[in-house]
């Protein structure tokens, strides 16, 4: 994984709460055996009408959101299934950060494994961002802050190890493999 410190982008806004992983990537596309190529299926049933034509009302189809790499969404984003295909699809599409007042646990874990930043902000910041789609904001992993175009800097929580991994591009499996001696000791100790 490449190190990530700053994400600077205009936002695309999906204000609905509880956007579940079935919307992010419907189950019928989960028969893939690779991690790539899911971006074109991202939010399929919202992006496309039943006849396959793009839905012009959907945010990602509006020309001004092209190239936006930060998704601002309503509370409890990514709830539902554990499918890592959801962050894979977002990353493949070009999204680098999701900003919400609450992000579902498994989605949050999966996002961090793929360099997708799960950013939790307070209600007021979220309301402001939802009310101002398309503004350019700066997410700084190092200082754990978002800078709004007004100049206001908003802190966000980011677990210490997640921050360290993102800033240094550290791979979690490598970290675990370095703990094999402790794992072996644990196994020898017998389990209850």
């Amino acid at each position, binding site marked *: 994984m490449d190190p990530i410190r700053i994400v600077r982008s205009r936002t695309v806004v999906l204000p609905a709460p509880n956007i579940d992983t079935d919307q992010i990537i419907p189950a019928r596309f*989960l028969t893939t055996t690779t991690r790539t190529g899911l971006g074109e299926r991202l939010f399929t049933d919202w992006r496309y009408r039943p006849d396959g034509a793009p839905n012009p009302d959907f945010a990602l189809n509006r020309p001004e959101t092209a190239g936006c790499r930060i998704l601002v969404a309503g509370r409890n984003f990514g709830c*539902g299934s*554990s499918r*890592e295909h959801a962050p894979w699809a977002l990353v493949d599409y070009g999204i680098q950060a999701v900003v919400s007042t609450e992000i579902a646990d498994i989605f949050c874990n999966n996002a961090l494994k793929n360099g997708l930043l799960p950013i939790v902000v307070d209600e007021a910041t979220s309301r402001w961002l939802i009310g101002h789609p398309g503004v350019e904001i700066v997410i700084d992993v190092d200082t754990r802050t978002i800078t709004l175009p007004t100049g206001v800097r908003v802190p966000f929580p980011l677990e210490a190890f997640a921050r360290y991994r993102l800033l240094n591009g550290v791979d979690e499996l490598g970290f*675990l493999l370095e703990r094999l001696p*402790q794992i072996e000791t644990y196994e020898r100790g017998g389990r209850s």
Partner: protein
Amino acid sequence: MKTMFQKVWERHEVVPQTADTPAVLYVDLHLIHEVTSPQAFAQLRARGLPVRRRDLTLGTLDHSTPTRTDQVFGGAPIAIESAARQVRELETNAAAFAVELLGMRSAERGIVHVIGPELGLTQPGKTIVCGDSHTSTHGAFGALAFGIGTTEVGHVLATQCLLQRRPHTLGIEVSGRLGPGVTAKDLILAIVGRIGVGGGTGHVIEYHGEAIRALDMDERMTVCNMSIEAGARAGMIAPDETTFAYLADRPRAPKGRDWERALETWRQLPTDPGAHFDREVEVDASDVEPMITYGTNPGMTIPVTGSVPAREDDPVFDAALAYMGLEPGASLRDHPINVVFVGSCTNSRLSDLRGAARLLRGRKLAPGVRMLVVPGSQPIKAAAEAEGLHRIFIDAGAEWRESGCSMCIGMNGDTVARGEYSVSTSNRNFEGRQGAGSRTLLASPLTAAASAVRGRVTDPRELL
């Protein structure tokens, strides 16, 4: 004084968490399936790593597999080519990494969260993970069981461990008793409706109290299964004599002296009196009625006799109702339906099938209603057939299938058509969950079967 969660967590800390690093948590049982494992095995291949503990790893095929007999046992190829490829890929990976796989024709194959308990592999005090959010099901035995993503599946395959921050605890005390015609499914739908689809985020739930103790293991699994629908990664229920009676003599449960030793350990697991949960909620089971969902997430629930709520200035709520084709204030009771699905890791066990059969015995499906009954595993299918349940379903006009996730996830050929209403015993009513444009009403097997008979949403108590 410790909670059960705390005891299980602490016994599995290979390295405890610090301010800078999460805990290294040991995994006792890793269940894998065809949808969330291919990219994990690819990770192992890329690094030249073996599966560290093949003896703690078990694979099955369930999500993308067909349920039509000819496609499972030969005579016809798997209709969805990409699904067939995925099945072949797990077969290849299991063979290459020497991992046990309950293959397409295995008499023990089934939904991953049904087979673990059925084989006796799911045991109190274990840590259990799987690349599937409904892994919470196994918590019914007093295990700490939660869903993980595919990258983490790779971590467990390679190291038998995960890096985890310790979650908070939420105690849900359920007092009283469920009334006649009211099931564990209704209870958990009521709980998710009460605390909301994000109400358990960051928490492990422990369900306790009189009403929980009175549940059998199938019912406890239904409750723990839907913990994730409240955002909790895991749900747990303390093991007791009901648990031990279920596990005794299961093929892969401990035997002889090992069983006696296991019992001693398991009896130490329940939460100590006076131990503290980070949050607590109380529910009275006597107040719970048969429940049904009316919207597009599992927190949007009402009693089957109730009416769809109205909300001021909530365009998202209005959009959910528009998707469902329902109006605020409308009664769901007697609403026409098209499809009934009895199955899924929530409600596909023998007692669920018995419940549905009880209502269908000597009755027929209403004209125009399609009903699928999909047992959770091949052993459940065989047991149901030995009791003659399949005859009741078939005589009523329902389709009796091979085991699998089927219409719960709509990625295996079993789907609900656009605009159709499905009364489903599964766990998610998200937009398109059962097929693009499908409209799902989550309910118990009793409510599902009663609705199949009437062709309309029906309170099962009217037919009992």
